[in-house]
């Protein structure tokens, strides 16, 4: 049985990287005695996959992971959530444990957009925030310049680092940008193509004169993730009774 788990990763856990989070959950599954399925082969590992990794320093309120349960096992959503939460550390909380269809694609592949909220550490008036947001959205296009270094073979067949500059208009991929109480709400395109980092949007707001949008002057939260049908990833599962 395939299961999608929704969880929160907040507080000091925002400094735990993606690989360490995986190791954390592997141990947590054993502590909570969740009947998780193991892969076949010489060194069996738990069948477990995560949604898109969170950047270091960002909190997540609607994070996802998919697991598989052993065929003969049964555990109710409530029981699983209770057991997992009793072995979590501060900053980690399981909110949902849902059965998803067997042919369901992994959370990582399904994610198309995500909601973010930036919260300013020092109070900024709604008016000021709104002004910057409106100014940014009134631009015809929002050009993001990305410089990437790639290793390429040169004429002698040796690998050398080549800098490539990529300019894209990200305005079409900012689906929503709103001033909220002492912060900004964003609904952004995510996934393998057109992945818009919320920090980029904040950088542009800083350009528009919003001092609080400077990196490290705000806390960032990823609120939830959605598929290209506009549904949250937990809308595809149902509770196990």
């Amino acid at each position: 049985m395939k299961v999608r788990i929704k969880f929160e990763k907040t507080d000091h856990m925002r400094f735990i990287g993606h690989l360490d989070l995986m190791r954390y959950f592997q141990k947590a599954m054993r502590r909570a005695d969740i009947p998780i399925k193991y892969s076949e082969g010489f060194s069996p590992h738990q069948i477990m996959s995560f949604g898109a990794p969170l950047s270091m320093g960002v909190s997540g309120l609607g994070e996802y992971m998919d697991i598989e349960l052993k065929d003969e096992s049964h555990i109710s959503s409530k029981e699983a959530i209770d057991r997992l939460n009793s072995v979590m550390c501060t900053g980690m909380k399981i909110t949902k444990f849902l059965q998803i269809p067997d042919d369901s694609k992994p959370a990582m592949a399904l994610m198309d957009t995500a909601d973010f909220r930036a919260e300013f550490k020092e109070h900024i008036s709604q008016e000021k925030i709104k002004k910057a947001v409106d100014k940014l959205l009134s631009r015809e296009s929002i050009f993001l310049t990305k410089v990437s270094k790639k290793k390429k073979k040169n004429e002698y067949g040796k690998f050398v680092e080549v800098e490539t500059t990529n300019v894209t208009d990200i305005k079409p991929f900012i689906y929503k940008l709103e001033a909220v109480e002492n912060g900004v709400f964003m609904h952004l395109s995510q996934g393998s193509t057109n992945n818009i980092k919320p920090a980029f949007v904040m950088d542009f707001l800083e350009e528009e004169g919003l001092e609080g949008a400077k990196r490290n002057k705000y806390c960032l939260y990823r609120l939830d993730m959605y598929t290209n049908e506009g549904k949250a990833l937990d809308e595809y599962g149902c509770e196990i009774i």
Partner: protein
Amino acid sequence: MRKLALSDDILLSVDKPARYIGGELNSRDKNLDDVDIRFVMCFPDVYEIGMSHIGIQILYDMLNRREDTFCERLFSPWVDLDKILREKNIPLFSLESQEAVKDADFLGITLQYEMCYTNILQVLELSQIPIYANDRGEEFPIVIGGGPCAYNPEPLAPFFDIFYIGEGEVVYDKLLDLYKECKKNNLSKNEFLLKAAQIDGMYIPKFYDVTYKPDGTIDKFTPKYDKVPSVIHRVVVQNMDTVSYLSKPVVPFIKVTQDRVVLEIMRGCIRGCRFCQAGNVYRPQREHSLEYLINYAKTMLDITGAEEISLSSLSSSDYSQLGKLLEFLLEYTKERGINISLPSLRIDAFSLDVMSKVQDVKKSSLTFAPEAGTQRLRDVINKGITEEDILNGSMEAFKGGWNKVKLYFMLGLPTETDEDVKGIPKLCEKIAKNYYSIPKDQRVGKISITASSSFFVPKPFTPFQWAKMETRDEYLRRAHLVKDTMRQQLNQKSMKYQYHDAEVTLLEGLMARGDRKIADVIVSAYKNSAMYDSWSDRFSMEYWNKAYEETGIDPDFYTLREREIDEVFPWDFIDCGITKSFLIREWNTAHKDKITPNCRQQCMGCGARKYNGGVCLESAN
């Protein structure tokens, strides 16, 4: 939200911020206003090393069981954060409360290896605590040290208020009760220390005077006050099963060096290898019962969710219930997808059977620690392993499909000759020859033999505490002799040889048997930027050579000199069970190339019998 001492800015700019945030599963959280004693427990190396150490976890668990005490953890900040803390003048903080270490009641520092001594100064300095005990006023924590290097604490004497000599479970409660009472009655630090000196195992260095002879050796080591004992008796757990479990081990977020549950099966060792400090100072050998360990293992695995478990002890093969314990673990871990990491066992039919059950035979290698290349030298060091054991054991393993062998040796052992040195590659050759005597269709490809050697460091409280070390050049000559002789062997292509750094070894030797004068060298080297000396990429002999110049200390006096039998050693004031007369007897027996029976064969009257525990009580003796 948990309070963090460092801003997001800083945390995002350093490598592995999880080293500094605490909050791991099973880490404790107490309100500092609700406790009487705040005890910061420090392992002076990076987080991943320190969190792999079971001793810290045991003490953390034990001290936090006290409602009046909050024990927190502290590790050396890595060099990236070290720089930031200095630049921004941020005082070092403990992981749990994230509050400044300098405001704690105690700063406990575990002394696991000599090469961490400069890191102790780093921790003190970054905490904004004066490094010399004499410069610390009432407002600063009591700095207390313990662990294996506390068996010669003298090079560190000026930095510490107290050294705890012995096993942590025994008198910490007494010490903390006393502290609490003194604090309540507003007694000074000095008054507290005077009372603490009355507790067994507590060594307070500033209460002692050391005078030296014209030749630089110690003349007298005497207490300054009547009430202060002239001998410090090591404190020892008599019955291991009376010690409560490590009930809630902290589970790190980041991958640490030993990412597994560690089951301590016994303390001490019956073997009496003459070079080994642990085997001598932790006597007598005391075992946990099988029932204790089974419950312990279950609790620890359930509570941590760890995917691997290992056993910890000296000479694990000597644990009397090893077969039954492994049988249980094999069964219990198989159902749960948990790995067993085996300790190095004596290679015989039993251990090979166990190894084949838990490891991939193709990948795993056999490990032997002959320590010396010839039988004569192995007898000198009392290593009870014979060439026959090694050849028979490896042959049995080859028939079971193994083809990788690791061998550990030491160079520079007392009485070593070039014949002994050449014995190392010759032994490798015999093993290889043995392997190729097996018919081709019954063996698995080529054999691979890796020999590694370290250079011998004489340690306090061993029969070799009188021995001299060799010069750097002589060490290298012997290592090259191994190498060159190896190249002459028939099967040399199947052999590899590695050896340790000779300079680090000599430095280790200086710290191990140094006196109080060495403290100046440590301070001077630290000021020359020595830190993380156990990390080969950070170590530089330049810092130390400059320190010798600045202090006028001659390291050769401590390393290259063979001691007179009646010389007063810096550590002579410690009574750790084994008597000096036993050690002298062993030193003399070694020079006759003779071995001494182990504790199970015959009691040799080493002195540890007075603790009334473990193997000393077995009726056969």
